[in-house]
């Protein structure tokens, strides 16, 4: 039998964005206000990896950089079908912008050594930059396709993916080693079974720190010291003044008024 593919899935633990509160005084998220979950787009990335494993055989490794408690998300990833997980945690990784984050993740992938495919979610819901995937690809010196909406074929040498960019759908043959970032359209992630959850509790999750990566990376390029960007200020967006005319009784009058507005704007000519 052929050697199974080595697939790496990058995962971020994020606060549940619908529930999390923001502290304007400190400019920080109050992470205790909402439970932490796997970034929703990363669930699609993981599902894509697990489907490839089911189809042609693969070892799926989930990697996350974050605080110690991000281990919970990696256990969840194992319950959802990852074979292994690695947690990158160190105070020296903290305060990283996308460049330092990507460098750290790419260094961990280097440390693992060989791989065929890296899969990431198109973006995270908290940072919303969509930069980490492509930056990791650049640091690893491998090609990447972003915004993958469909995986058409996969074999030992490469993957055929469909991505929408500009005014077209592009079907692209990507040779391994490569990286893709996936959108929510790529699949519907499955829920872990109870048995998988129990199994995941027993999994050993190695923790890697900055020193452990020192043979493949420069430590000063991690975390805050390796981050060229910083948030200088945060504030609430100012609301624009609107006319705010409210109608609630005669709908006919309301419609008349709106028709005359549309006429003024030359929408109705």
């Amino acid at each position, binding site marked *: 039998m052929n050697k199974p593919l080595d697939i790496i899935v990058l995962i971020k633990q994020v606060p549940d*964005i619908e529930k999390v509160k923001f502290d*304007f005084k400190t400019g920080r998220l109050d992470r205790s206000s909402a439970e932490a979950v796997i970034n929703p787009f990363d669930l699609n990335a993981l599902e894509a990896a697990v489907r490839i494993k089911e189809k042609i055989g693969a070892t799926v490794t989930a990697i996350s950089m974050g605080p110690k408690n991000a281990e919970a998300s990696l256990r969840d990833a194992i319950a959802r079908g990852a074979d292994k997980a690695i947690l990158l945690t160190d105070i020296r990784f903290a305060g990283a*912008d*996308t*460049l330092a984050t*990507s460098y750290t993740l790419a260094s961990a992938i280097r440390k693992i050594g060989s791989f065929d495919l890296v899969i990431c979610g198109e973006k995270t819901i*908290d940072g*919303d*930059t*969509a*930069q980490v*995937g*492509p*930056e990791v*690809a*650049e*640091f690893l010196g491998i*090609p*990447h*396709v*972003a915004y993958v909406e469909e995986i058409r074929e996969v074999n030992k040498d490469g993957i055929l993916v469909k991505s*929408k*960019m*500009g005014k*077209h*759908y*592009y*079907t*692209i043959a*990507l*040779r391994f080693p490569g990286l893709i970032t996936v959108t929510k359209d790529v699949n519907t992630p499955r829920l872990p079974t109870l048995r998988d959850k129990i199994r995941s509790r027993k999994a050993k999750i190695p923790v890697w720190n900055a020193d452990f990566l020192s043979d493949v990376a420069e430590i000063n390029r991690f975390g805050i010291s390796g*981050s*060229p*960007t*910083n*948030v*200088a*200020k*945060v504030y*609430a*967006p100012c*609301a624009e003044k*609107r*006319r*705010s*005319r*409210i*109608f*609630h009784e005669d*709908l*006919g009058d*309301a*419609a*008349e008024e*709106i*028709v005359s*507005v549309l006429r003024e*704007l030359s*929408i*109705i000519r």
Partner: protein
Amino acid sequence: MDYRDILVFAEQEDGELHQVSFEILGKGRELADRMGVQLNAVLLGWRVKDKASELVYRGADNVFLLDHPSLRDFDVIRYSRNIVKLVKETRPDIFLIGATRIGRTLAPRVAAALRTGLTADCIDLDLDEDANLIQIRPAFSGNIMAQIRTKTRPQMATVRYKVMRIRERDTRRKGKIIKMEVEVIDETGMKIVEKTRADEVNLAEAEVIVSGGRGLKKPEDFKLLQELAEVLGGVVGASRPLVDAGWISKDHQVGFSGNTVKPKVYIACGISGSPQHLFGMRDSDIIIAINKDPTAPIFNVSDYGIIGDLYEVVPILIRKIKNELRRSKNGE
């Protein structure tokens, strides 16, 4: 040599320039004038020389033209390698790229190769007293705004489509078109095997958008909104729950995780107005909201609010608009 000048990535597809490139040229011109530096554009493609003058008309002082068959379609390796080389040679202080999918695929690779900072999806740009770039972007679903600064050079940012003003096209503007040598890369590990036109609604360019939210009872009821949109020459939008439920395709989604729109008229039907939705449409010229619930947040951002059932209000609107159209056609 110091870093100076502003560079803008001119995005083209099939020789057609993307509007966002004109928008960032508009903003770039303003910043360059304040800094007393030049505004340059980089254009990659094949047989796109005539487009280079368009960039001058829109504000560029110099256009670096990389014209080669290998650059006809977007290939992130070929594009990023050539751009990285140009940036190393020309050392811009600021480098702006449209936050389209192509831009957001390309910019991070260039930033990583240059080991410089990149700020995603800016909605405004400003300068501090020392002419450092202040990058303004929304964070946390648009609930807050953040100002980002970059220590390294060039200061790179992607800029959201439809938020910056386009400068008027001035065909008398003079600028230099500088033909650059293209590094030809045969093998990139990627190959386009099929390219098909995406037949999708373009919300970003629509003048009128009629959007539906959870007030809609079933997917078929989009027909009602479609009819209103049609009589106004507009298109249909939707809030995220309806897209997630599969009632309508993602290209119709308005909001933080969908499209940011800026039409002349936005009609929100049965949309309560979550911060995520408001983020995507609050810059519309005129906002009209129809909702049964008088406490719906959408009314706080509306110019005209109708408290009522959309199933009652929309048909009345359609009828009145049709009457009005008939009247103008008859020259009354």
